[in-house]
C-alpha cells in the first residue's frame, strides 16, 4: 500500500484494532461483506490521516470515530439503492418519458380519449377477437412484447422477468406500461372501433 505508514510504529497497532472495528461495523450494518469493506475504507482513511493524529484520544477511539462516518456513508448508499429498486423514481421514469408525448398533450390529457368499451366480455366468445388480439400483440416492439407476454399471458413475476431480460425492475414497469397503452389503442381501433356503438 502507501509508502509512509509502514514506517510509523502505529501502523501495526491500527491493524490490531481491525477485529474490534469489524464487530462495530457489523452491528450497525448487519452485512458481513459490507462491514469488511467499510472497515477497510476507514483504515485507509485513517492511514492517510495518521500524520495529523495527535494522540490525545486513544487510537481505538480515533479509529472508531472515522469508522462511524464511513458506516453512515454506507447506510446512506444502502438506502439510496433500495429506494431506486423499490420504486419512487420508477415513478418519474414511467410518467415523464418522451414517448408519452404522442399519447398525452402538454397538459397531461389524453390526446385520444379511451372510450367505454361496450360488453367487452362478449369478445372472448368470438374467434375473430382472438385473431385481432394476436395481431395487436404482434405489433408491440419486440422487447416490450416479450415482457408483456411473460407478465400477462404467462403470469410470471416482474422480478423474474426483469432478471431474465437483464433490466431493472422500474425499467420493466415502464415497458409494461408502454405495452399496455399500445395494446389497448390497437384493440380500440381494430376491435372496439368496428363495433363502436352509440356515441359516448
Amino acid at each position, binding site marked *: 500500500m502507501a509508502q509512509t505508514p509502514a514506517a510509523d510504529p502505529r501502523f501495526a497497532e491500527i491493524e490490531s484494532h481491525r477485529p474490534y472495528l469489524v464487530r462495530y461495523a457489523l452491528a450497525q450494518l448487519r452485512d458481513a461483506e459490507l462491514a469488511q469493506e467499510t472497515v477497510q475504507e476507514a483504515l485507509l482513511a485513517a492511514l492517510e490521516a495518521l500524520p495529523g493524529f495527535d494522540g490525545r484520544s486513544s487510537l481505538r477511539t480515533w479509529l472508531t470515530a472515522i469508522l462511524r462516518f464511513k458506516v453512515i456513508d454506507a447506510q446512506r448508499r444502502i438506502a439510496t439503492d433500495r429506494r431506486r429498486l423499490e420504486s419512487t423514481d420508477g415513478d418519474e421514469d*414511467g410518467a415523464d418519458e418522451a414517448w408519452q408525448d404522442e399519447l398525452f398533450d402538454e*397538459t397531461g390529457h389524453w390526446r385520444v380519449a379511451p372510450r367505454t368499451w361496450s360488453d367487452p366480455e362478449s369478445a372472448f366468445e368470438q374467434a375473430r377477437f382472438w385473431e385481432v388480439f394476436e395481431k395487436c400483440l404482434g405489433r408491440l416492439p419486440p422487447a416490450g412484447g416479450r415482457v408483456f407476454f411473460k407478465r400477462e399471458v404467462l403470469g410470471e413475476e416482474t422480478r423474474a422477468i426483469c432478471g431474465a431480460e437483464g433490466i431493472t425492475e422500474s425499467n420493466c414497469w415502464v415497458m*409494461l406500461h408502454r405495452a399496455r397503452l399500445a395494446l389497448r389503442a390497437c384493440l380500440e381501433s381494430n376491435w372496439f372501433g368496428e363495433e363502436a356503438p352509440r356515441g359516448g
Partner: protein
Amino acid sequence: MADSDKVDCRKASWLLSVASERELTAQERQALREHLDRCLKCRNYEGQLKFLREASRRFGK
C-alpha cells in the same frame, strides 16, 4: 387551482399500470382515486386494463 401535486391523465395511467407491479403509496392511491372520481377517460382506461389482463390470461390457456 394549484393542482400541481395532483395527478393528470398521463400520471394516472402510469399509476394504474404500475399498481399491478408494486403497492402504491397511500399518497399515490389517494391522488389516483381523486383523479378517477372526476375523469371518465381514465376510468375507461382502468376498465380496459382489467380487460387486457383477463384477455391475456385467457389467451394463454
